[in-house]
């Protein structure tokens, strides 16, 4: 699994995390959580278009839209769940502008390539894997 290569933007994010010491990785994750874009109003007004990620301990909702051969990701999670927001933000930034095939080829173990196992705990990281799995499933359904 881990010899599969990450898409360029995710690879860059992964390098950013691995380049700093463990305590700073939490700060970096916090920065990502602050960068999660708010939902466009067409989605904010229609929350039923988003899917709840049950693997996450906090209420996080995502939608992966396919338009013009490109995947567009949107996600929302409450302010009081910064870790979950950080995970969502990493995926939104890391998968931006990819084709459906590229998203589907993204290695499933992305969450474990950020060096967060000790700083965050593996149990918490499984939420991020759940998000990626749901994104891929949505993309697969929408391109079928």
């Amino acid at each position, binding site marked *: 699994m881990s010899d599969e290569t990450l898409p360029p933007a995710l690879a860059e994010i992964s390098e950013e995390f691995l380049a700093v010491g463990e305590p700073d990785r939490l700060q970096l994750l916090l920065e990502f959580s602050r960068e999660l874009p708010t939902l466009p109003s067409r989605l904010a007004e229609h929350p039923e278009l988003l899917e709840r990620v049950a693997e996450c301990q*906090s209420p996080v909702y995502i939608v992966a839209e396919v338009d013009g051969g490109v995947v567009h990701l949107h996600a929302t999670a409450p302010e009081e769940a*910064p870790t979950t927001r950080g995970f969502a933000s990493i995926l939104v930034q890391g998968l931006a502008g990819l084709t459906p095939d590229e998203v589907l080829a993204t290695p499933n173990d992305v969450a474990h390539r950020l060096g967060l196992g000790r700083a965050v705990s593996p*149990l918490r990281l499984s939420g991020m894997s759940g998000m990626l799995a749901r994104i891929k499933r949505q993309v697969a359904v929408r391109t079928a």
Partner: protein
Amino acid sequence: MPVETDSSDDKFAGYAHPERLVTTEWLEERLGTDGLVVVESDEDVLLYEVGHIPGAVKVDWHTELNDPVQRDYVDGAGFAALLSAKGIDRSDTVVIYGDKNNWWAAYALWVFTLFGHEDVRLLDGGRDKWIAEDRPLTTEPAERPTTRYPIVVRDDTVVRAFKDDVLTHLGNPLVDVRSPEEYSGERTTAPAYPEEGALRAGHIPSAQNVPWGKAVAEDGTFRPVVDLDAIYRDGAGLSEGDDIVAYCRIGERSSHTWFVLTHLLGFENVRNYDGSWTEWGSAVRVPIVTGTKPGRVPSE
């Protein structure tokens, strides 16, 4: 020297051990007092960084109180190293607060209890109440001088139960604090926590289902003793002198109930089975009951 207890709240007076709780008002007035250390312990590992009570140190249950390899808590040396680094003395009064109605705060308090830290209290209402009341927050990490916390052998015999203890306990009161769906066996995981599953679903025979949240009011504070008596004594049939074991999924929600039964209602023999459903529901040949009824303990 321990800091004086909070006697400002009439509700506390009804509890068996009111000295185990403090109000947000009490805490704000005493921030910075010598001998008082405030500890934040959350489910979300980044919340402390977003903003915390000024001077509070962070203790993370997942990454700091657990052994990184074995499914167990840190040992005496590990706990001493952790508390020394956090700047906590053995004689300090520790007030713990956190998110999610103090789930993880209660879990941290219970782990402190395993090491016999004498004066450890919860902030009634936790992080959410503090924020709702617009009390001060800071993003500045607390800088406390390191201490020399002694190496204390962890005592697993008084407030902790292992699987074998639960097997011999069968026939005595058990409290399953999970959701009704987990209890009945419709699902093996908490509604939002599928990653912590077990292979089989249901509950330990004879366990009463009292979801942890029943002990908490809308504002996140503990319910007054009259309500707690109705829930646990009248409702779940617990009575004085009972030997009680509480469990959930990994022991965090049942730490909350352990706190209620021990410190608020004054039951003297309450243990938390931290292996909980993630162990019991995957163990070979342990009895399980499905459905909404407690069921019977199997005869030998």
